[in-house]
């Protein structure tokens, strides 16, 4: 069945079974198709070749430090929140050889970089918070004067199939961060899963010419006003289900004005400084480089790996680590994410996906930490805790 000609901003409806066609069309167009799939007891992102690999009929129960898959009553394809992986795994890869140098027989040294991936990515199932996270990493890694060519090569031409969340997870708070649940920009196609009364279909909104071109090759029919209405209702339902809330009003000033708040000591007593929150965060971008040489000193290579502000080396300067206490490292992470990110990049560094809450082995919840500081503020002109002057030296740590 051929639908109407679809332009930018247009919408069609496809049956749930047509997702398989969509995946195959994208593969036929030469894309490496990545989507959610179940592995090791979680919904992760990996290469998919058919719709059957999607987590059909599964959902995830998420709480601080806890994630569990559970069967759904229905056959929803995207009836879950975000899992432990984020798309940075593909765009800002965890381990990357930057170059390899080899001593030549004539004594000269030749250096080479590895080729960039041959095929473009198509991402299926990108949530609104994740589109915002990708936009933030774009800003950080290719938005300034120094552009990361490796990220640029992987990011270039990604075909984005967004999914509008129709339910929210236990640690979600995109509404607080203004990043969801409905995808507004940064995608080619946006799917909204409509599942009721024996119907199982997707409203597909197209936001680009190539998006329209792709969906035209999938069996579809024109969207009716009631489809758009049902999609809007589903988004509203997700927005009302947020598992967490973060009051962002003046959060930058709140945190930077409370650098010596006793709550930092309290959270430091629970924090493992293991780095998990930074690894799962879709905006955390820090890397380090390791240099290796072989035994004969004939081959040398530089490898870039994801790094974390929770490691001691991260702030290692002459004489030692600047942030030796867990307190200073947690505070650095949270104040960067929610406060100084604004100064540096003009946005918040948090998109409210909740991964850092779910995947913290001890369940530290940044929304709780912020609210603890907010609710224990100096009142009536009498400070409960001493707040240092801007020149204050604190405890000698940054």
């Amino acid at each position, binding site marked *: 069945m051929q639908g109407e000609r679809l332009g930018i901003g247009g919408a069609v409806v496809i049956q749930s079974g047509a997702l398989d066609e969509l995946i195959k069309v994208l593969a036929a167009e030469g894309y490496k198709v990545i989507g959610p799939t179940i592995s090791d*007891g979680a919904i992760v992102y990996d290469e998919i070749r058919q719709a059957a690999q999607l987590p059909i009929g599964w959902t995830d129960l998420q709480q601080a430090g806890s994630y569990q898959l559970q069967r759904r009553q229905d056959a929803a394809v995207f009836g879950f929140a975000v899992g432990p992986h984020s798309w940075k795994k593909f765009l800002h890869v965890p381990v990357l050889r930057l170059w390899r140098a080899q001593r030549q027989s004539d004594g000269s040294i030749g250096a080479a970089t590895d080729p960039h991936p041959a095929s473009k990515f198509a991402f299926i199932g990108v949530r609104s918070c994740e589109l915002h996270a990708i936009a933030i990493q774009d800003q950080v890694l290719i938005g300034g004067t120094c552009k990361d060519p490796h990220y640029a090569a992987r990011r270039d031409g990604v075909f984005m199939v967004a999914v509008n969340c129709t339910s929210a997870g236990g640690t979600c708070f995109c509404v607080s961060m203004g990043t969801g649940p409905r995808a507004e920009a940064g995608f080619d196609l946006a799917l909204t899963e409509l599942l009721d009364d024996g119907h199982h279909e997707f409203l597909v909104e197209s936001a680009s010419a190539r998006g329209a071109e792709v969906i035209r090759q999938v069996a579809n029919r024109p969207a009716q006003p009631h489809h758009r209405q049902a999609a809007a209702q589903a988004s509203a339902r997700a927005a009302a289900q947020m598992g967490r809330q973060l009051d962002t009003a003046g959060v930058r000033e709140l945190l930077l004005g409370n650098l010596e708040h006793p709550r930092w000591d309290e959270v430091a007593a629970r924090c*493992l400084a*293991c780095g998990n929150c930074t690894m799962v965060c879709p905006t955390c971008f820090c890397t380090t480089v390791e240099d290796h040489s072989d*035994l004969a000193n004939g081959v040398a290579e530089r490898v870039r790996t994801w790094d*974390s502000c929770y490691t001691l080396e991260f702030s290692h300067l002459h004489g030692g680590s600047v942030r030796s206490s867990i307190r200073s490292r947690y505070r650095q992470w949270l104040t960067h994410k929610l406060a100084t990110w604004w100064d540096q990049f003009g946005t918040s560094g948090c998109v409210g996906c909740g991964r850092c809450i779910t995947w913290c*082995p*001890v369940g530290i919840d940044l929304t709780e930490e912020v609210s603890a500081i907010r609710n224990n503020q100096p009142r009536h002109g009498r400070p409960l805790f001493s707040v240092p002057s801007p020149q204050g030296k604190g405890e000698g740590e940054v």
Partner: protein
Amino acid sequence: MARAGKPKLAVWKFTSCDGCQLSLLDCEDELLEIAGQVQIAKFVEASSAAIRGPYDLSLVEGSITTPDQAEQIRQVRRQSRALVTIGACATAGGIQALRNFRNVPEFIAAVYARPEYISTLSTSSAIADHVRVDFELRGCPINRHQLLEVIAAFINRRRPALPNYSVCMECKRRGTVCVMVAKKIPCLGPLTHSGCGAICPAYGRGCYGCYGPAQTVNAKALADAWEAAGASKIEMHRVLRSFNANAAEFRSAAETLDENG
């Protein structure tokens, strides 16, 4: 015959199972390369032929458990330009350091018909407790890729690129789903030194700390999380009291659990 100027490598064994030395033999392909770049001057596991010291690089396996060894390691140090310990025994005292928490004369009396023939120390201690150590390579056993990195680094006089952060960093980089969060499996990864490549969680089991303590150890926080996940403090105590029981951070964590019952 080795050419002059080729660095001399020696491998020493104290109280240990030999598994870490075997990692060097396990290098197979790279072993020829090693032999090409260094003169393997003393390596009893591989050859009974030995060349006298001094040595440019000594790899030391095993812990110090006898008075003789305590003297011998000083001789090794004197003959070595650089001394690198390999494995949990040499770096933390090994599984045999469990004796440190018990009454050794009682063990000897119970096990040996003639206890007076036994000459042993009451503790199993790390090499660094006796002599200066230039680098400690962790693991039970060590990872051979890390061993090659250490040898290459010392031959080329650079710093080994071997991070000391948690196993969690390796788990996340390889995309492994956290076994603690998703499966409620007690895992020592957040306290444990990286280097193994996060093997155990990749096979669905918890880390049991064979690389010893990471750079930052908040054992109480993890013990509370284990308890919340249904694992008793006794289980945590057992895991801390294994190959790296005598590593300072693990030892004090276990003692704290003792004090709190």
